[in-house]
């Protein structure tokens, strides 16, 4: 095993990786930007290195500076977390050149499985079902229109290098193809420096189900069952759970076998996730993430396997220490992603100071976060600030436990999406396990949230009225005087 590992990430995932390192007796090195100088991950690591300015480009994406930090501190390996450099094959190669172990797949496997067109081609070759569509990258809008006619509209144009919904377009009829093709290509070119597109038949009510795999250096591939991440907003997952309420033993078997065979065909090693879309009892391979996922804790909760420790053992060329038959699925786990965003204002980011932070506690409640009172959530990075995870023997009990956990959580200083999670957990469709990736649009959750907001407004009004009524009650210093509201311009 390594004696020292650098964590090339920030926030909750850096904290989570550092915890596993500590448990294994491996020394940790955190890197941090200017904005993250007082961040939790930089405080809890054995060593912390300032690597540059606040923008990701100056710090967490600054390959040269991160490699320098690893050399300066004598770290033998780099854990990239998720996002940032985690799926950057050039960085994995740069690590190899410096004789530093990149905790992830080989650059070759990363490109073969992480690039969407290549992964789709490999899936077809391996006999893993994919949605009907183009065999590879599209030449032009004309070819796209020909394939769309044969598979039938609507179709989805996707960026080969895409992610997070960028460069994706739903095309409903032939007359829209040319302009949508061009706009998808332009956006993809701008965002990823690669304008290549491919096309798939559009699925209009799928579930998102993904399989966690672990593959070691000797070519042993095991799966750790699936996660269901159907509750999303704008292609960003919000609530994740394991196992999926939509699978039975037979479909679970077929899905996990497909994931394992695809990983084996790609010569993969490391933890990885095969994402599938599930619709009308059929599943289709969507893409692979060649890294640790945000939602990995739900898998850890139902299997009892620490995925970060497994990643470290694989990277150190040690055996996994268990075989497929040793991996069992026990109970049900749910995760809610707490984001600094306001669902009632179009999910506008709401970074701000952490005035009070008391994470929920209790049996089978896990919280992964990078929060610390007195610290401010920076505006430069992702808006995920905490993950609340609950486990119970059954799904309903896990939901109930999550409701209590969210009620018990105190996070003051900025608006979060907690109320949205609370509305989701009360939704009858969600409770029944009947959701698709369009859940937020098709359910009554947003309406329920707005009703709640009216209540909050009434409470604020009551409080303001009292403060106005009793200056000594708190508004006194604000010099409230009795007068008519000022007429405002533009009215």
């Amino acid at each position, binding site marked *: 095993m390594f004696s020292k590992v650098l964590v090339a990430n920030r926030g909750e995932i850096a904290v989570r990786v550092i915890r596993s390192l500590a448990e294994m007796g491996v020394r940790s090195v955190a890197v941090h930007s200017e904005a993250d100088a007082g961040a939790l991950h930089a405080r809890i690591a054995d060593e912390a290195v300032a690597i540059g300015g606040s923008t990701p480009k100056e710090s967490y994406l600054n390959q040269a500076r991160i490699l320098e930090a690893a050399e300066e501190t004598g770290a033998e390996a780099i854990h990239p977390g998720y996002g940032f450099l985690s799926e950057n094959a050039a960085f994995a190669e740069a690590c190899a050149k410096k004789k530093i172990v990149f905790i992830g797949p080989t650059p070759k496997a990363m490109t073969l499985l992480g690039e969407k067109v290549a992964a789709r081609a490999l899936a077809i070759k391996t006999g893993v079902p994919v949605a009907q569509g183009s065999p590879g990258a599209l030449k032009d809008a004309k070819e796209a229109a020909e394939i769309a006619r044969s598979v039938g509209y609507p179709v989805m144009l996707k960026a080969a290098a895409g992610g997070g919904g960028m460069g994706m377009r739903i095309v409903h009829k032939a007359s829209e193809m040319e302009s949508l093709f061009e706009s998808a290509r332009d956006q993809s070119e701008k965002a990823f420096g690669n304008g290549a597109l491919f096309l798939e038949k559009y699925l209009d009510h799928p579930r998102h189900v993904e399989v966690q795999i672990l593959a070691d250096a000797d070519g042993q591939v095991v799966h750790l069952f699936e996660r269901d991440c159907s509750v999303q907003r704008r292609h960003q997952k919000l609530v994740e759970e394991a196992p999926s309420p939509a699978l039975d033993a037979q479909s679970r078997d077929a899905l996990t076998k497909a994931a394992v065979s695809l990983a084996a065909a790609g010569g993969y090693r490391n933890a990885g996730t095969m994402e599938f879309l599930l619709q009308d009892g059929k599943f289709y391979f969507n893409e692979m993430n060649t890294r640790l996922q945000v939602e990995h804790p739900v898998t850890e909760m139902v299997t009892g396997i620490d995925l970060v420790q497994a990643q470290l053992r694989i990277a150190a060329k040690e055996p996994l220490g268990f075989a497929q038959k040793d991996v069992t699925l026990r109970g049900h786990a749910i995760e809610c992603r707490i984001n*600094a*965003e306001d669902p009632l*204002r179009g999910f*506008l*980011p*709401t*970074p*701000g100071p952490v*005035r*009070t932070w008391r994470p929920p506690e209790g049996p089978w409640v896990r919280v992964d976060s990078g929060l610390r009172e007195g610290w401010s959530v920076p*505006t*430069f*990075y*992702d*808006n995920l600030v905490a993950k609340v995870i609950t486990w119970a023997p059954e799904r309903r009990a896990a939901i109930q436990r999550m409701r209590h956990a969210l009620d018990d959580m105190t*996070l*003051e*200083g*900025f*608006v*979060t999406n907690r109320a949205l999670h609370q509305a989701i957990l009360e939704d009858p469709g969600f409770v029944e396990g009947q959701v698709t990736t369009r859940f937020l649009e098709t359910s009554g959750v947003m309406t329920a949230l707005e009703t709640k907001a009216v*209540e*909050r*407004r*009434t*409470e*604020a*009004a*009551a*409080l*303001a*009225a*009292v*403060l*106005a*009524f*009793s200056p000594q*009650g*708190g*508004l006194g210093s*604000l*010099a*409230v*005087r*009795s*007068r*008519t*509201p*000022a007429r*405002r*311009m*533009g*009215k």
Partner: protein
Amino acid sequence: VRITLEVAGRRHEIDLARTDARVDLEVDGQPLQAKVRPLGGTRYEVTIGTRRLDVDVVASDRAIISGRPTPFQVAAFLPVGVDGAASASDGRIRPPMPGAIAKVLVAEGDSVEKGRPILVLEAMKMQNEITAPFSGVISKIPVKVGDAVKLTDVVIEMAPKEDSNGRKA
């Protein structure tokens, strides 16, 4: 008076005026009327429409609010800003979120129509357009691309357009 009141982490823009036991409010643009009855000490009963809430201001930044359907709760509150300055309608435009200025789409002296994009703000990998709250002339741009701004910072100052008689439109 206009205040920004933060209750349990959420900010509300509130205009209020008091006459005896009655307080006229405008909360986030919604007009409301509250009747306040002191119950002694720091406790008050507030009636807003058909809703009745008990408010106990237990500290300078904490109140206990209860009533139906509001469950008994302790709300941390913080009066953030006072006076008309909290409003964009006075022409001193403040950002809807903290972030960095990604683009400045106007120059000082430009005439803009209501709703026209004037700035692009970036935070947490999301870009957000700020539009002109009314038709007018850009009088001052105190920020430049790359500047980090807080919720309380003025990012653009603008004056309303005047018609031929010198009246504000």
